[in-house]
């Protein structure tokens, strides 16, 4: 082998003074790092992905995991990642697969935006003592109301509102399919959203029977592969989402390897067991905006115009114009998925190089829709890289109605963002279909953790709003005056329509 082995990604070591040879690391590691030889525990660091399962379950804190124990000769252009990708492709001749979101060190716009608070001239509002409204309605709104004056002085509403989703917090959970994640993981998320009064997406994997009890909090997805789609599926969802693209891999379809298509996944997706589930890059019935409009109406007709229909697009250069087209269809919401959005598996080249950040995309979509006087025709849901409540507040200031979280919810269930989801070996029982791994994830306990996370963020959001002297989320939405850019360049501040700090 002319290239030989590449340096270790992680080096695992066990402190012999602390280890009591209980073997929990061996039981927990699904990547084959540890093995028993006689009384000793042996380590194969090359298999380690830093999922921290062993670390989390070692009763003695005896394990240390060190990243990049060997240095390459440093070079600003020929980074370690670039060199290793070349080694990989020189050996395989294939497209490199990767997991999770964009791993390039682009600046994070969220981290260069700061929020406002009241001092003196307007009082901040204390959410512990005053009502604080986070209730959000997702869907089309009328531009004005038709009212009839009745003889008794009362007023009758003539305008009929189209169905909206009512959520008590602007935080929903995005689409992660059964197949990409385990049924236990989906069940935990489903329990959490139904208790909170928010919604989650099914992903392009159908809706498993055991999740029917939670269907009124589920948004069912219709993607280019149409896996799992029939009238029963459409009717069960609270809303329907057409997935055009995904922030982690704009412009291409999905790929679920056959190894993950077990009997149960095959039934739910309505595909043969063990077959690869490959979603085409475009929908084969959508080659233009008019075609999308027809699909939206087709889905609405099929469900008797009772359900909102969302359209999800990846954040790309032309998102604003695309969203304006979507707003002119019967669609009720547009989901903008930024380039930091997570995924189980994406070609590395797409994950790291295609698409734009959600902050810029939402800002330009909101501005374009306002400019054209059609902002009320569609709600904006932002997703892709929402890590904390401050991100939620900031993206709402930039014009979003609500957010989808994905990775954050998985982290609440133990995910360590190791980025090896595509291997199907997830030691936390999340991104795997192996029964022995799936059973590690207890739906009940994990649903409480997810619920706690969303509850905590909601409390923080209420505090941030109160500090800004705002008691209703409508007044935060698109309120870019309450943001300032810190070390953002002029061009970007113009796109975001925010001033610099101090201005």
């Amino acid at each position, binding site marked *: 082998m002319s290239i030989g082995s590449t340096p270790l990604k992680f080096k695992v070591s066990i402190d012999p003074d602390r280890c009591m040879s209980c073997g929990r690391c061996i039981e927990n590691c699904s990547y084959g790092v540890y093995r028993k030889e006689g009384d000793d525990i042996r380590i194969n660091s090359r298999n380690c992905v830093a999922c921290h399962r062993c670390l989390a379950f070692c009763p003695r804190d005896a394990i240390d995991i060190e990243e990049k124990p060997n240095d390459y000769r440093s070079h600003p252009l020929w980074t370690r990642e670039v060199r290793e990708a070349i080694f990989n492709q020189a050996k395989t001749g294939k497209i490199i697969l990767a997991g999770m979101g964009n791993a390039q060190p682009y600046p994070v716009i969220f981290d260069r935006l700061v929020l406002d608070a009241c001092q003196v001239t307007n009082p901040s509002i204390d959410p512990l003592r*005053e009502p604080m409204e986070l209730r959000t309605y997702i869907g089309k709104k009328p531009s004005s109301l038709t009212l009839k004056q009745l003889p008794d002085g009362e007023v009758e509403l003539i305008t009929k509102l189209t169905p909206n989703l009512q959520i008590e917090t602007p935080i929903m959970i995005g689409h992660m399919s059964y197949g990409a994640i385990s049924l236990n993981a989906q069940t935990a998320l489903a329990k959490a959203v139904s208790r909170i009064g928010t919604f989650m997406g099914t992903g392009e994997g159908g809706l498993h029977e055991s999740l029917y009890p939670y269907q009124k909090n589920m948004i069912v997805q219709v993607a280019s592969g149409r896996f799992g789609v029939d009238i029963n599926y459409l009717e069960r969802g609270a809303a329907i989402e057409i997935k055009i693209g995904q922030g982690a891999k704009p412009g291409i379809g999905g790929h679920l390897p056959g190894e993950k298509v077990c009997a149960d996944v095959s039934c739910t997706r309505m595909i043969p067991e063990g077959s690869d589930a490959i979603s085409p890059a475009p929908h084969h019935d959508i080659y233009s905006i008019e075609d999308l409009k027809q699909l939206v109406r087709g889905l609405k007709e099929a469900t008797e115009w009772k359900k909102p229909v969302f359209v999800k697009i990846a954040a790309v250069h032309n998102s604003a114009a695309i969203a304006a087209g979507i707003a002119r269809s019967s669609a009720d919401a547009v989901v903008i998925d930024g380039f930091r959005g997570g995924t189980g598996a994406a070609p590395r080249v797409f994950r790291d190089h295609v698409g734009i950040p959600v902050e810029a995309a939402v800002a330009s979509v909101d501005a374009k829709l306002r400019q054209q006087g059609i*902002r009320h025709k569609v709600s904006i849901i932002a997703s892709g890289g929402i890590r904390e409540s401050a991100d939620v507040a900031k993206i709402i200031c930039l014009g979003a109605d609500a957010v989808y979280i994905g990775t954050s919810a998985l982290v609440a269930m133990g995910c360590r963002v190791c980025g090896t989801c595509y291997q199907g070996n997830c030691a936390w029982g999340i991104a795997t279909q192996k029964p022995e791994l799936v059973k590690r994830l207890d739906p009940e306990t994990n649903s409480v953790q997810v619920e706690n996370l969303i509850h905590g963020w909601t409390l923080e959001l209420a505090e941030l709003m109160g500090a800004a002297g705002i008691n209703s989320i*409508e007044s935060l939405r698109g309120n870019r005056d309450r943001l300032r850019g810190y070390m953002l360049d002029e061009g970007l501040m113009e796109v975001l329509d925010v001033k610099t700090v101090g201005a």
Partner: protein
Amino acid sequence: MCGIIGVIDRNRQLMDGGKIRESLAMMDERGSGEGAGYVAYGIYPDYKDYYALHVFFDNIRENKGALDTLLEKWGTIVHDEQIKTYEQPNIRKVHTPWRYFFRPDRSLMPKSTTPDEDIVTHLVMKVNAEKNGALIFSSGKNLGVFKAAGWPEDVANFYRIEDYKGYLWLAHNRYPTNTSGWWGGAHPFNLLNWSVVHNGEITSYGTNRRYIESFGYKCTMYTDTEVVAYLVDLLVRKHGLSEKLAVRALAPPFWEEIDLMPPKEQELNRAIRLTYGPALMNGPFAICVANEHSLVGFTDRIKLRPLVSGESGDRLYISSEEAAIRRIDPDVENISMPKAGEPVIGRVYS
């Protein structure tokens, strides 16, 4: 801070500005001597069919010609003159106030159902956005705004406010934070027949401004108050809501109250909040809005600014302070403090 007062005589009996000046001066504790203003309805009976445009010129020679040309392009200047002012030691006359009586040529906006108003609105937005040394700060019929940087009594004396007689008055004593000493920043703000005085700060301004601008209004005054005038114009004149429902949209009940309403009422209130969410005004405020028929006072949803109303015969008073009302009318009755978000509405009999 800031102090506001509004009074309407429902029988259209005229009141001169003298008492209003005294009443406003009662609230000097609420101001800082950097801005005050008055608006009176019914002051131009001889020209009541024409739009009375009040303009601040930076410089008559440099700036007036362009405005004359623009107005002539869109209609007819029936009469124009300098607004009389009287030198005051504490007021630096940085602008020359001017009044035009203007008749728009409605044939120039054939597609509009309200061509006169649309032409005047267009002119106000255009002139004020261009900032070419002219600012139209009053544009209604048979009414006029008088304002400047200074204490209320000095501003009143500058214009000799007691010489004007109106059946409806609004007045404002300013404690500026955003734009000190700028005449355009003093209240009342006016568009067509709508005038607004405001105490407080609108924390939802960024949302409200972007909403109203998507309907073609332009916010040009560097202050949150003008957005109120445009919102009321949109909701009442263009969308046809009653004053009461317009206030419901601007300072709506909380969801927990709406959830407990009977079904029909609940449906109406939900529809108002869904439709007019971006028009909802947040933050501390007490506001008086007037047009030629009515005076409306209301506060934010948790009443973070004071508002008191009182009555005396045909007259309804709304103010930041009871003392200010009593200064005009010591025998005022029915003093009450409206609840948060609930409007006080006074309307002329005919």
